[in-house]
Structures are given as C-alpha cells and as structure tokens.
C-alpha cells in the first residue's frame, strides 16, 4: 500500500509540505506546535468553537486530503493517547470550582476521544468507517493497523489515518511531577548531548492518506510493514522481534538505507537504541527525530512522516544531523520506536 499524502503540524515547520531547511529550537522541556493559519482549512465560525487540538487535527487532516486530491476518504481513523486534554481539564476545573453546578456542555462534548475523527467526518459529510484508538504509545500504530487491514480486506480503496496529542499546562505540570522531563534551559537540539535523565515534552498532529493503488501523481512511499510488541522482557526479545520483522518482509539490515530511531534523550530509555546500534543495526545509518518533535505517545507518527518525506526526495534534509552519507539515495527505511519501554513499534517504508 501507498502513502499518497501527508499533513503534519508539529513543533517544526512541517506544515505546507515545505522542505525541512531550518530547525526550530526551543529552550526548556516543552515544545509547542507551530500552528498554521487555520482559515484556509476550517470555517472561521467553527475555528472559534474548536479547542486547539481539534483545530490542529482537523487542519492536518484537511491538508493531507487536499494533497491527495480526495474530498471524502473511505475511512477516518485516529489515534490519541491523551485525547482532548484542554477540554477535559476545562470541564473538570469548572466541575470542581463550581461543585458540580452551573456547568455548560461544550467542553464535555469536545472532550471525548473520538472528537477529532468525528469533526473531520462531520465537516466532510463522510458517512464511512470512523474509529478512534486510545492506547498510550500504541495509539497511532493501532490506528494504522486498522487502516492497513481495511485496505487488505478490500473494504476501502483509501483511508485517512492520523495521530494527535497535545500538551496542556495541566498535563505538562502533572507529567513533569512524574519526573518524565529534563530540567533547566536545555535546547531540544542538544538533548542527545547531555546524557542525563528525562526527555522533553512534545506534541503533534500528523495525518496520512493510505491507498491500495499507486497514484498518477507522486506518492511519498510504500508502506510495506508495521509491527508492534508490548513489554518485551529484554534486549534479546527486542532483537528477536526486529529480526522476525525483517525476515517477514524478506530483507536483511543490508537492504536498509536508514534506520529512524526514537531516542528521546533519556539515558535509560536510549540504552536500548544504543545497544541495537552495536548489534542488529551496527552497519546502518541512523537518524533521530525526537529532538525535532519532542517525546509524546504518538510521536511515531512524526517519524513516519519524516521517513515518508525522506523516501519521497531520496535524501535526508540538510538541516538534520545524520551519521550516513548524504550522497546515498535512500530507498528503504525502518523506523524503530519505543515509548517508555512498554510500547515498541517497527515500520517499514520504501520507495515506490
């Protein structure tokens, strides 16, 4: 199957399909999405009613559909770990402050985890399949698997799949108290240099239009495979899963031009990637991405966008640090991510 189009709102200038020529740098442990002018994509009256995550999700989806030149997709599937945090926090705050009285429904209505997929469906008057996955670091992978299965089943000829997660003041305060993030005024571009505990918080909205058939226009890439594994016991089980994934697709590490890895700057968390770069991926060029988008449960959607974009041009953007040769044309990429040692995922994308 093919990745025909993408739409990506992230802490980098990724919206509008421009090449990643300069990187946005942030100070501190919280990256924020660079939001577009929504008026181009959403009716002004609707923009006002939508909370930030809904706007980001809907705009990324609309940009993706525009690029694919598809008005109404055959299915809409979203993944979000936290859902609409701003609306949830707002309704809860009022509920506590006013002791369960004088509440209004808007924030509650928009707090449900399927709101973004539903809003996209509503705007497009799309009566088709509409689903929402909410499983922590597997939210995007589950949504993608659902979409891939729909295509395999020949139920649809295209699907819109996306992942959305936002940081709010409340969620950031709580996650920070849990000890997830680095402290101090560190730049996101330097997170791999400090070798300290913790990562930096990120967010994003990335959508993909997947299709059974190649398009006459240029597709980004072929999506050849996806695999997830849950709570592996140790490095051996991780390696076994990666080996099985490569074997399932009849390739070896020698056939991979680039491995995009989900290092997030946390020394403990990154140990897995460092071990793999000594073993399975010892001969492969690797590229980090969480210095660009931060860490969040659906960050792998940013990685898939990055991988698909690199395949489309055949090169790693000049602004990115990368340990391979920029001369080589990149035709096949494996993305390996893990979220908090619990949710591990592998993606395989290749040139059309």
């Amino acid at each position, binding site marked *: 199957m093919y990745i025909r189009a993408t739409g990506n709102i992230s802490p980098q200038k990724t919206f509008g399909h421009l090449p990643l020529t300069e990187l946005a740098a942030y100070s501190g442990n919280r990256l924020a999405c660079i939001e577009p002018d929504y008026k181009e994509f959403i009716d002004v009256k609707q923009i006002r009613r939508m909370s930030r995550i809904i706007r980001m999700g809907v705009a990324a989806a609309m940009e993706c559909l525009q690029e694919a030149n598809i008005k109404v997709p055959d299915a809409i599937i979203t993944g979000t770990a936290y859902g609409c945090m701003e609306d949830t926090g707002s309704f809860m705050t009022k509920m506590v402050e006013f002791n369960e009285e004088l509440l209004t429904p808007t924030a509650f209505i928009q707090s449900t985890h399927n709101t973004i997929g539903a809003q996209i469906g509503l705007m497009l008057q799309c009566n088709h399949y*509409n689903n929402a996955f909410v499983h922590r670091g597997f939210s995007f992978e589950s949504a993608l698997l659902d979409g891939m*299965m729909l295509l395999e089943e020949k139920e649809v000829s295209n699907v819109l799949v996306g992942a959305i997660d936002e940081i709010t003041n409340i969620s950031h305060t709580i996650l920070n108290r849990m000890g997830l993030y680095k402290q101090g005024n560190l730049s996101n571009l330097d997170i791999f240099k400090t070798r300290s505990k913790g990562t930096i918080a990120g967010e994003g909205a990335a959508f993909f239009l997947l299709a059974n058939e190649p398009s006459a226009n240029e597709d980004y890439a072929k999506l050849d495979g996806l695999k997830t594994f849950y709570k592996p016991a140790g490095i051996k089980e991780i390696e076994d899963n990666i080996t099985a994934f490569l074997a399932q697709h009849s390739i070896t590490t020698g056939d991979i031009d680039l491995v995009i890895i989900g290092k997030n700057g946390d020394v403990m968390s990154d140990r897995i990637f460092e071990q793999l770069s000594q073993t399975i991926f010892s001969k492969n060029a690797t590229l980090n991405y969480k210095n660009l988008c931060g860490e969040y449960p659906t960050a792998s959607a940013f990685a898939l966008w990055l991988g698909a974009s690199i395949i489309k041009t055949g090169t790693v953007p000049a602004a990115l640090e990368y340990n391979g040769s920029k001369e080589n044309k990149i035709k096949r990429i494996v993305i390996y991510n893990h979220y908090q040692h619990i949710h591990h995922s592998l993606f395989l994308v290749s040139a059309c």
Partner: protein
Amino acid sequence: MEKPVFVAGTGIISAIGKNVSECLDALENSKAGMGHMHFFDSLHRDKLPVAEVKLSNDDLAKLSGLPNTKSRTAQLSLIAAREALIDAGIENLSSLRTGFISANSVGGMDKTEKFFAEFLSDNNKGRLRDVVDHECGSATELVADQLGIKDYVTTISTACSSSANAIFFGARLIRNNILDVVVAGGTDSLTKFTLNGFNTLMILDEKFCQPFDENRRGLNLGEGAGYIVLVSEKVAATLKKRPAATLSGYCNANDAYHQTASSPDGNGSFLAMNGALKKAGLQPADIDYINLHGTGTQNNDIAEGTAIKRLFDPHYPKMSSTKTFTGHTLGASGGIEAVFSVLSLQHGIVYPNLRLETPMKDLPFNVETKFTKNIEVKHVLSNSFGFGGNCSSLIFSKVL
C-alpha cells in the same frame, strides 16, 4: 466466504449482577439495576438515579485481585474479562497468539477526579498514583497483564459505540491471521465527569429510564464491563465446549450530522445495520432479535426506530433495550450487550424492555415487554451508537 469467527466465552459485571448467571437471573426476573447512589457520590445524588455495580471499591478489589488503589474501571474490566476467558476454557492459551482489545470512555477518570480537586488547590498536591492510570489505555494494560495477554493489546474509544468497535476490530485481527484468540469488549465506571457532562446535555432521566416509550425522558447512567472471547475456526475445533455463536456481521458507519445528536432519519444507524447485514450475508427478515441501543433519550430512540423502520418494515424482529436493566454503561455497553446477544442465541431467550407504558406513536412496531424463553433465536443484531455520529452494529449468529 470469509472465515467464521467464533464466540467461545462471555463475561460480564453490571448493575444486575457480578457474573453471567446473576445477570441472566435478573433479566429473567425483570430485576432492574437502577437506584440511589450508594458507592458513587455526587451532588446530584438525590436527583439522579444510576445503575451501580453493587460492590464497594474494596469489595471489587477483593474480587478482581487488583490493589484497591486502582481505578474501578480496571477492576470491573478484569472481573468480566477473566470470567469470559475461564468460560472459553482454552487449554493451550499460552501457545496461541492472543489479544486483549478493550474499550472505555474516560479511562481512570474516577481516580483522576480524586487527584484533581487537590491538584487545583495546589499544583504540587494530589497523589500521583491517582492520576498515573488516567489514560484509557492504562486500564486495558492493567487487565492484560493480569490475564497474561501480551501478543496484542489496544484500546478503542468512540464514545458509546466503543466496545462494539473493539469486538469487531478483534474479529478482524483473527480474520487477518494476526491473532488466534481475542478477548474483546469494554468497561466504564461511573464518574462525576460523565454524570455532570450528560447532565449539562439535559438527557438524564430523574426517574428510571423508559426507552422507546412515547413519554421517555432520557437515560440513566450505569457502570460495568462486558467481554466476549473470539476465536478462529482452528481454535474453536480444539475446544471441549462447542462455541454457541459466531460474530457473523459488523459495520461501522458515521452519521455525520452533529457532534452529539442523531440525524432525524437515523442515517448512521441505518448504514451500520444495513452494512452488518450485508457483511453477514443476511436479509432483514433473518434477524430474530435486535438488542437496541435504546438509551431512552428523545433523540436516540426516534432516530434508531426510524432507521429500523426503513430497514425492517414490514418484518419486525423482537426488540428490546437492556439498558432498562443496566443503565447506559457507555464504553461498556457494546460489550455488555454483546454478552446479552450471545446468551439470547445460546439459551433461546429474549429480554423485556422494562417499564414500557406507551409505545412511540411515530413507530409502527412494539418492543418486547416480557421475558420470552424456549424460542429459537438464530441471528441477533446489536446496536451501539455514540457521540461523534459513531454508529456500529454487530450480528451474532447461532452455530447450528
């Protein structure tokens, strides 16, 4: 012909019982689960009846084996999912590719609420252990880990159709040869967040709900969990107890009309039911019983009823809303009602739609008012519709 997916086991906990046999007994004896709030607390305690699981958090924890610090949502989930798995009696489970696909609407919100009141007064306060399982996926993982399920674990949340979607996603994982066994369904506990949310929408009934009644006033919220164990044909052949049912049809469609309201002609519901029939290769007249979404709100029941009229007229199957027993359990409702649908096929029974006084004037059919037994039920349609226009229908068929 697509490969059949069998239902090998069922498990449930709801306001009318903490296992399948207690729930069946309550259904047969018309014992509804609504009442005053005993375990759950809210400012609205004297005004709004709810359908609580009749166990305190401590008693639930004793029953589930999880620490009592964990969300009620996870406790309910584990109790019902474990019952389903034991019922299925799969001996060589560890050698099979097994998944746990669960659904819920607000994750560990019951604990988050506790945290949040303190957190608001001072951002350094509130116990983190009460918010650490806030995410919907967390309850699923707590249960999967207890059940020893590791091959595939995920969570779906499409409001009130969540667990119907979990069930059919599970069936598709089997049909796509990704898994052999799937425990699928959903769970939700009562929370202030949801109760107050529904209250702002003014769709909660201050009396016991009366779905499909001309004078219906709204819904009663409930809590619980319901799971079924889905297995491939190959696994089914190895079981000592022959599975009673298959999941023969399913469809997910979107009403695309309004974020919370259903379209007057029930377009989404119509598409979901029609799609499920098509998937199952059945005609409307083949359906013996419809387990209605039937929330009791003005809007849902006329939309669902109109869609049924469009699709089934003039051959109406027996119909009832078991939410008249369990209340609306939101993310759990599709799972709980899937269990009731399978039991209907298994035992040849159809449940009453309690408290019906005046049938809806605009609909040409009547819902069941009595418990019926000793009849043959071959195909059951189960409807689950939710906010965001999410409409899903499942069809369960008797294994002949």
